[in-house]
């Protein structure tokens, strides 16, 4: 990275969640206003969520990413008050619901669906009864429940599993049932807590496609927490990055991941975008400097590299290239070896640095030892 603090001005609500003024607009489905959650465990105070403010617009998919233990699960649970904030306010549709109790709290929860990593179905009853449980909670008359159950199962593509028990379903099918259950009472908001983290790659894509369709066709606002950047880049409109209970960065998904400003975001992005070269290959490379370049998809880098090589009379070899799409936009990562006369190489590097938004010299020794360039990239 060229600078520690890139001021991109791209983040909505400014650079960070904390301290942001909260003004409830008509299009805001959810507002968290300086929310903190502190647990008391064995005489100790554990601050799971610290002074988080964020705004989720109606109809968008809002993501919260972070490493495990960052407080994401606790934060998302404050939205339907499974966790009540120790301080701060939760506003749904502009109304402060923080102190709701009894029937008002239950009515609120009927408007907010929740799906979980572990599906959390009642395993000893059928798919039909699992969904009927939510319909009874929502006060649906008996005569209308069966039609509604069929309608919901049709929506998630599981019509044939009406009388199956959850144990006979695959992970993806179980999550579809839990989506049907979450949508039973026609909620305006759907909360997803690591909803795809227990699923394989293909099933994850199917579930994400389903959630996207629900978001688009039913206009349901989705708040999705995950540690998987695959999920983030595929469906999030806006994203917040969480660490140690705080939101350290938030904004439009592409902007946050293309130009991460906080170390945690950078670490997440590195883990995901970082290119790795086998350590044994590093030792066999000719002398020269290894550089990681990051560019946005609309910049064409090939001509730049050949021009720089020609102008400065150095040789630039591409060791590894990778392009990841965030929605319609792409972020490319290129690992190059720059070699040539001692006087020419620094100038060539300067030119490269000025033309890309991500520039990082890598340490050969660290690379050869197997570390350094985000070599933990997921399979």
């Amino acid at each position: 990275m060229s600078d520690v603090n890139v001021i991109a001005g791209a983040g909505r609500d400014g650079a960070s969640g904390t301290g942001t003024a909260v003004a409830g607009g008509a299009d805001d489905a959810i507002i968290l206003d300086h929310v903190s959650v502190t647990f008391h465990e064995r005489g100790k105070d554990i601050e799971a969520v610290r002074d988080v403010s964020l705004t989720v617009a109606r109809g968008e998919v809002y993501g919260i990413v972070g490493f495990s233990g960052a407080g994401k699960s606790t934060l998302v649970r404050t939205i339907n008050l499974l966790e009540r904030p120790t301080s701060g306010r939760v506003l749904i549709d502009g109304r402060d619901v923080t102190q709701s109790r009894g029937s008002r709290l239950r009515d609120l929860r009927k408007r907010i669906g929740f799906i979980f990593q572990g599906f959390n179905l009642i395993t000893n009853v059928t798919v039909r009864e699992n969904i009927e449980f939510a319909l009874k909670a929502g006060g649906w008359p008996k005569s209308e429940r069966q039609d509604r159950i069929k309608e919901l199962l049709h929506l998630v593509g599981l019509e044939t599993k009406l009388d199956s028990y959850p144990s006979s379903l695959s992970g993806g099918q179980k999550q579809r049932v839990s989506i049907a259950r979450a949508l039973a009472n026609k909620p305006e908001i759907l909360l997803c807590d690591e909803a795809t983290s227990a699923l394989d790659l293909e099933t994850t894509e199917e579930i994400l496609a389903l959630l996207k369709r629900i978001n688009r066709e039913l206009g349901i606002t989705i708040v999705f927490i995950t540690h998987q950047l695959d999920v983030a880049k595929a469906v999030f409109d806006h994203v917040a990055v969480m660490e140690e209970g705080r939101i350290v960065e938030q904004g439009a998904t592409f902007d946050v991941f293309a130009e991460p400003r906080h170390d945690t975001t950078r670490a997440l992005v590195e883990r995901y975008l970082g290119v790795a070269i086998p350590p044994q290959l590093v030792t066999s490379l000719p002398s020269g400097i290894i550089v990681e370049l990051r560019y946005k998809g609309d910049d064409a880098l090939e001509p730049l590299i050949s021009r720089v090589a020609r102008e400065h009379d150095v040789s630039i070899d591409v060791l590894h290239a990778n392009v990841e799409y965030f929605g319609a936009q792409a972020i490319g990562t290129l690992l190059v070896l720059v070699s040539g006369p001692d006087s020419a190489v620094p100038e060539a590097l300067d030119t490269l640095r000025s033309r890309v938004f991500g520039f990082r010299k890598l340490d050969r020794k660290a690379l050869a030892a197997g570390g350094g360039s985000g070599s933990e990239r997921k399979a």
Partner: protein
Amino acid sequence: MDSTLQILQDNLGKALLDTAYMVVIATVIGVVLGTLIALLLYVTENRLFTPNATVNTVVGFIVNAIRSLPFLILMVVLIPLVQLLIGDPYTPTGGAISLSIAAVPFFARVAESAFSEVDPGLLEAAVSTGATIPQIIVGAVFPQALPSFIRGVVLTVISLIGYSAMVGTIGAGGIGDMAIQYGYNRYETGVLVIIVVILIVLVQVIQWVGDWLARSVTH
């Protein structure tokens, strides 16, 4: 041999009926009241329902207090109470009352542990639908806890058969009474052997039926 057969013919039927009477009454009362107490403990303990440390501690203390008495002692302690209630404590009904009072806290703990085994994630999902506590107990907790609950009922019935022999020895009748009176006091080894065999078969059958039921509600 003649006298053994004679004794069995004259007494076994009534003894078995008396035992069944005591055990069935105590099981029904124990399961019904025990379940209600278990639910009270469960909803006052769990933060997703109505946590109430005071109620939980007081009820828990009473349950533990009764459970800390060995049944033999509880039975003796209860004699005056039973006398007050029905007049003659040395009858199957008197035995049934003592057994019921032992069964309630016993089953309360058994049922509470069956409820506590229900996955907290499932409770979060149930609470998130906006369901009321009774709806969650009936629609989610109970079906999920049912296999453990059934095994708990079996455990209780078998324990009560054992305890019923004790109330038998102080004169409440039943199969325990018969074993002591004839097998022990009158050296009728044959009677004792037959009763032992009956008890073994009975307990096996109850366990077998219970396991089958528990399996049939597990999916």
